[in-house]
């Protein structure tokens, strides 16, 4: 049961962390629970469908279907996060002002919440489909219902608990910095997902690695440790990144940052008081 619980926990954790950031970024938005809930629901349904068609997906496009599928949905999530982050850069200050003023919920308005629904759905779908395949294997190998149900419960409770910890931790950020902070978190999240997409495209031999291992920081922080894995999801930490992953990371981060600056108008979202010498 412990082994089952641990695997489910690791997968749930990744999705839960992404959902937490989305929840923080949509703080105070009326009806956001419905959006996030729909995303989780759609993702779960998608996970079951993807797991069911795993063989078909894997065999598609001369055997690189799995990598292409992962890369495409990761890049879709990157685009959605980028869109939302740029939108928030131009409207975030008004939102913060409204929330401080009346303390009432802010109208969603033209805010692209559907983009975040897609992000949540993709996060749940990716991790969920692995859980479904794993549990199917467990069941087929004769694991008992108690063992499987116990493992699922342990994993979900543990993963969701850490997600809540992150969420309430983020709520501690002072309101005047809050949306710029969550926006930068979203930027790093998107950059990390882009790096993961690059890794799949290297694995499929669609893109060159540009150096298989630019550095190796696994002795300091392993990808498989809890913190390493959390940082992997949150900011795209990779103990042994390939050059192409770094390139994707940098391009995504810079593109979203430029978008936030350009459309952020006079907003001081970046708040970079550069004090250049001389």
């Amino acid at each position: 049961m412990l082994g089952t619980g641990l695997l489910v926990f690791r997968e749930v954790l990744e999705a839960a962390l992404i959902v937490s950031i989305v929840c923080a970024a949509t703080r105070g938005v009326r009806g956001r629970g419905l959006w996030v809930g729909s995303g989780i629901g759609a993702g779960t349904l998608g996970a079951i469908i993807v797991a069911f068609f795993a063989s078909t997906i894997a065999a598609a496009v001369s055997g690189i279907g799995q990598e292409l599928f992962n890369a495409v949905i990761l890049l879709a999530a990157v685009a959605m996060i980028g869109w939302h982050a740029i939108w928030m850069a131009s409207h975030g200050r008004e939102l913060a002002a409204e929330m401080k003023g009346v303390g009432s919920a802010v109208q969603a308005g033209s805010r692209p919440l559907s983009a975040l629904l897609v992000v949540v759905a993709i996060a749940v779908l990716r991790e969920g489909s692995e859980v479904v395949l794993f549990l199917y294997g467990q069941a087929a190998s004769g694991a008992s219902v108690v063992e499987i149900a116990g493992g699922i419960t342990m994993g979900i409770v543990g993963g969701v608990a850490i997600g809540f910890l992150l969420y309430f931790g983020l709520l501690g950020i002072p309101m005047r910095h809050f949306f710029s902070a969550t926006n930068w978190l979203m930027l790093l999240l998107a950059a990390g997902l882009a790096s993961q997409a690059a890794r799949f495209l290297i694995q499929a031999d669609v893109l060159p690695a540009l150096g298989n291992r630019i550095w190796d920081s696994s002795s300091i922080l392993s990808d498989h440790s809890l913190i390493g894995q959390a940082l992997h999801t949150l900011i795209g930490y990779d103990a042994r990144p390939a050059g192409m992953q770094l390139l994707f990371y940098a391009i995504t981060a810079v593109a979203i940052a430029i978008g936030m600056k350009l459309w952020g108008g006079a907003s001081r979202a970046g708040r970079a008081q550069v004090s250049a010498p001389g």
Partner: protein
Amino acid sequence: MIAAKNSISGAILGAGLMLAAGTVCAEDYDAKLVIRDHKFEPVELTVPAGQKIKLLVDNQDATPEEFESNELNREKIVTGKGTITVFLGPLDAGRYPFFGDFHQETAQGVLIVK
């Protein structure tokens, strides 16, 4: 069994287009692993250094597995009775452990690069 192949790059993403042009026509070394009873065969697989590896993983079990390696920075699901291809390297000489994520107590192996 060395197959020359072109990497189809840039078709999906423009970002790596210019950089990808440099790696067209790499020579791949074919290697194969079998998964049986949630174990890898062979447990130690030797491949040459400095060459791109095309690794075939043949799962003869009825249940799915995930081929994963932190050292190689790879993860890929292989369904029951399914086969996957994973591209690796070119790698430096050394030992690169890999495992089956769904059966970690038994599915452990090492890629030895010489």
